[in-house]
């Protein structure tokens, strides 16, 4: 399935669209169902719109919790993560409500009925009447506050970028690890991760490798660690 980046306002919009395309109601079951499509979109987003990637990764993390619960029902994630899954359904429905409200405003906008104030120039009223408290120093202070705010706007994209770990780098890293060890486990992979984002990216990379049948995931028994194995060629 090919998803275009531009047509979505964000991760929630994409999720909603994926669920509605399958004619499902918003539920944890539906979310688990569209997880893979969502993740493949996130991967394509990396090149097209890296600025929004962080927002998509936050939702991807929640979806992975939901998906792993649906695959391994006995998986104990602790109460906090279980709530995450439920929160996502609520968040999505709340978002859907505001999308409905936005649709209403869009219809108002489409009527093209607008009103205007008076466009008078008040030439006849111009009188030199300065505020006695205003000095050059005060104006300079006001301007340096503006300068500080402008810096924020320019800095924001860089901050977001720093937060995001490159997915392809991570995939390469795991591939190398696997060829080195042939077998490794999920817990050893995420042992050295420094941030939540990195854990998510690791999951994403694994999922991608599984799909490409480069590795296989095995869980020998419930509650056991997930074992990652390099697929022997032609035997996937």
């Amino acid at each position, binding site marked *: 399935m090919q998803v275009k980046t531009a047509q979505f306002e*964000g*991760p929630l919009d994409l999720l909603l669209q994926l669920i509605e395309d399958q004619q499902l109601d918003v539920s944890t079951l539906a979310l688990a169902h569209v997880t893979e499509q969502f993740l493949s979109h996130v991967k394509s987003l990396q090149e097209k719109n890296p600025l929004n990637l962080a927002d998509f990764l936050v939702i991807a993390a929640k979806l992975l919790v939901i998906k792993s619960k649906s695959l391994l029902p006995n998986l104990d994630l602790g109460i906090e993560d279980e709530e995450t899954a439920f929160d996502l359904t609520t968040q999505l429905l*709340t978002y859907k*409500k505001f999308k409905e409200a*936005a649709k209403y*405003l869009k219809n108002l906008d489409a009527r093209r009925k607008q009103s205007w104030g008076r466009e008078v120039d008040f030439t006849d009223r111009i009188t030199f009447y300065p505020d006695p408290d205003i000095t050059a120093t005060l104006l300079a202070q006001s301007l340096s506050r503006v300068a500080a705010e402008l810096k924020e706007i320019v800095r924001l994209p860089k901050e977001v970028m720093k937060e995001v770990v490159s997915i392809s780098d991570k995939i390469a890293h795991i591939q190398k690890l696997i060829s080195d060890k042939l077998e490794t486990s999920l817990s050893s992979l995420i042992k050295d991760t420094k941030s939540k984002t990195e854990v998510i990216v690791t999951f994403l990379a694994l999922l991608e490798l599984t799909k490409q049948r480069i590795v296989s995931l095995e869980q020998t028994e419930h509650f056991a660690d997930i074992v990652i194995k390099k697929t022997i060629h032609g035997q996937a």
Partner: protein
Amino acid sequence: MDKLKSQILSILFVASKPVSLTELQDVLEVTEEAIKQSVAELIAGNQTAGIIILAHNNKLQLASNPDNSPAVKKFLSLELREKLTDAALETLAIVLYKQPISKAEIENIRGVNSQYSIRHLLIRGLIEKIPSPSDKRMQLYKTTLEFMQHLGIKDMKELPDFEELTKNIEIPQAPTS
């Protein structure tokens, strides 16, 4: 027309910007109640009047009737204001129904960084910033009288209730644990 209503209209006519109820009270030396009463009566006449009175967040402004949009557009030979993008409409809908609201809350609902949509709406004058009453360093957003002008809203009461508008979408109760 009674004296107070006539005075309110005269003041709004000469004002170079939206006028607050407090300003009117100071100038006309009447109670807030009396002003609100007169304004409500004036707004009741908005439907067909050529000049209507817009009221929102305790501010007032006169404007041409949006139903006369084609005639005004032709007379001024101007272009209508540009249509809003979906991202801007989404952000605007959230501000409209949750105002006053912070950037963090907007982003929490949309699930996406909304810095640029907020900036776009601020520059177009459809929303405005106010300092939060509880924390002066925090900014909150509200819709403006320009918002009414852009969408041709004569009275904020015309807008449907949020619950009414979204009654088909049900949010399940949190499971008991």
